[in-house]
């Protein structure tokens, strides 16, 4: 097998080769490092390649495996982390010029957990500056430049986890850690053609991660398959005294569904009518391929609540507070995207009453979603209404007239629900499309099981982008 092909293997297959010593963690890490160095800049996907520490960790893994010590399925597997998780002694830039030289004296909990699982951190990956919290309106919103999808480098890899999306899609790393406040794992997963899992709020510790919105931020895996994401989630989820929002729950992964009863899937009314034709066709085909596993109900009314304004008020207020020092000092002027240089200021005067009203609405919002999940096990939608946006233009001008219908992504984030995005075909300009399933709190097992079943019947997740294969 060619070196490149190794990096397109699912984690479970890589793990089997590493455990049986058919494959060396050092060799695998060297392949990753070479591709990160050579191809990362073509995609604006990488901030820092961690060559020395990665090779050190890989050699440790190799020695442990040689001694018969096996830490689990991530032992010896390379990965990358969005550059908002702290890594001791290595710059953690948050994708933003004002923080380009920032160095922490500790590792984020996810980094510690993955190291304990034997995974090898190879790179800090690019991201939209400050995770998009200042209101960017253009893909070129990071000091590394616009993240580019390897399927067509004239187009964006999505945000704000732009580097994780591009790096996994191009086979630079087998998996990555991304983050989502409202859409930042699902969107780059869709635009980059990878599988992404947004965990339930409070399942994965955010200790050591940049805060944009304390009540919305989540860390989660982006990988080649649903099984990969579940394996990573099992390693990073769990109690952490350093994050008071952690629920105390862990995640155990038992694998694909086997003879379970059919899942009741709701398709919200209006979620496919105005999407791009290929997005709609691929969504319908994906649901049809799961016919033996799901009972689909279409045109389900979405709860009529101000989802968008609520997530807007919360991110605006919490983001302005989180970055108050930067705004007060005038350092927003150093940000890349012109909209980000001014976008944080209005948050300084957002009335406390509006923020509190949004936070008070989250209880009836959770009640509305609980009611929905009494009738259905999952909600299915196209992850995004379009394929990736052009890398060189404003979002608002890219696809006029296209709409995804009800605000499922804001609703899922406001109510802390998990969601899984998976590639389900291709659309305009050779770009990937994606399907998303969202479930009740802590239903990651159901989501990943259904995802694994879907991916056992389709091959979209195995496709390799030309030029990077």
């Amino acid at each position, binding site marked *: 097998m060619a070196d490149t092909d190794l990096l397109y293997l699912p984690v479970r297959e890589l793990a089997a080769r590493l455990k049986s010593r058919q494959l060396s963690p050092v060799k695998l890490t060297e392949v990753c490092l070479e591709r990160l160095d050579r191809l990362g800049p073509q995609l604006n996907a990488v901030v820092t390649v961690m060559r020395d520490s990665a090779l050190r960790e890989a050699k440790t893994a190799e020695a442990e495996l040689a001694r018969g010590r096996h830490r689990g399925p991530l032992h010896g597997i390379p990965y990358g982390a969005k550059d908002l998780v702290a890594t001791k002694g290595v710059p953690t830039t948050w994708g933003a010029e004002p923080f380009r030289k920032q160095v922490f004296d500790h590792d984020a909990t996810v980094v510690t957990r993955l190291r304990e699982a034997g995974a090898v951190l190879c790179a800090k990956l690019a991201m939209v500056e400050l995770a998009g919290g200042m209101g960017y309106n253009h893909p070129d919103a990071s000091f590394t430049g616009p993240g580019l999808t390897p399927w067509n480098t004239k187009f964006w890899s*999505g945000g704000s986890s732009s580097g994780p999306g591009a790096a996994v899609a191009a086979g630079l790393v087998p998996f990555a850690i991304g983050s989502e*406040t*409202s859409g*930042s794992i699902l969107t780059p997963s869709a635009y980059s053609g990878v599988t992404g899992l947004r965990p339930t709020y409070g399942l994965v510790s955010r200790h050591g991660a940049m805060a944009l919105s304390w009540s919305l931020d989540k860390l989660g895996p982006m990988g080649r398959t649903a099984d990969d994401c579940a394996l990573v989630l099992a390693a990073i989820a769990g109690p952490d005294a350093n994050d008071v929002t952690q629920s105390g729950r862990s995640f155990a992964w038992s694998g694909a569904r086997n003879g379970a009863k059919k899942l009741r899937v709701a398709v919200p009314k209006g979620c496919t009518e105005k999407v791009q034709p290929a997005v709609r066709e691929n969504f319908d085909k994906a649901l049809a391929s799961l016919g033996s596993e799901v009972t689909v109900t279409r045109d389900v009314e979405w709860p009529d609540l101000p989802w968008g304004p*609520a997530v807007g008020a919360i991110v*605006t207020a919490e983001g302005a507070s989180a970055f108050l020092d930067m705004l007060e000092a005038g350092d927003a002027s150093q940000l890349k995207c012109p909209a980000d*240089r001014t976008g944080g*200021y*209005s948050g300084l005067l957002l009335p406390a009453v509006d923020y509190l009203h949004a936070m008070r609405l989250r209880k009836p919002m959770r009640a509305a979603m609980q009611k929905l999940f009494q009738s259905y096990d999952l909600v299915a939608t196209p992850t995004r209404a379009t394929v990736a946006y052009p890398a060189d233009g404003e979002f608002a001008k890219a696809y006029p007239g296209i709409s*995804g219908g009800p605000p499922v992504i804001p609703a899922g984030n406001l109510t802390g629900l998990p969601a899984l995005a998976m590639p389900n075909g291709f659309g305009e300009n050779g770009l990937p499309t994606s399907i998303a399933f969202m479930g009740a709190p802590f239903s990651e097992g159901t989501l990943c099981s259904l995802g694994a079943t879907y991916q056992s019947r389709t091959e979209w997740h195995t496709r390799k982008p030309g030029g990077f294969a």
Partner: protein
Amino acid sequence: MSDVSERRPLDRRGFLQLLVGSLATIPVSAAAQTSPAPTTPTTPPATTTPAAPAAPEHSGGEARLLTEVLRARYPDRLSETQWGSVVSDFDGDLGGAKRLRASKLKNSDEPDFTFHA
């Protein structure tokens, strides 16, 4: 990024005139006239609501007034074009707030976080 040549500092009299003009519009819901389209999954492609376009001529007085408060706080910070973007941001915030407040809550509805002593 401040563009001094374009700056238009507002003196105390001008501020008061703007205040009077703005207050006159608030009771008739100035924000309602400037509410942006609701946020949907297609328009904000990532973490948060993207920035609105440059300040429209019809921006509400309340948004302009709020912008002047910021201008007074940071007089040398932004160019006129950038202040126009801030006006648009306030327009968006005010429109969102109007939609939020249209969802009625009971007195007993507490915020979705809990303080622990």
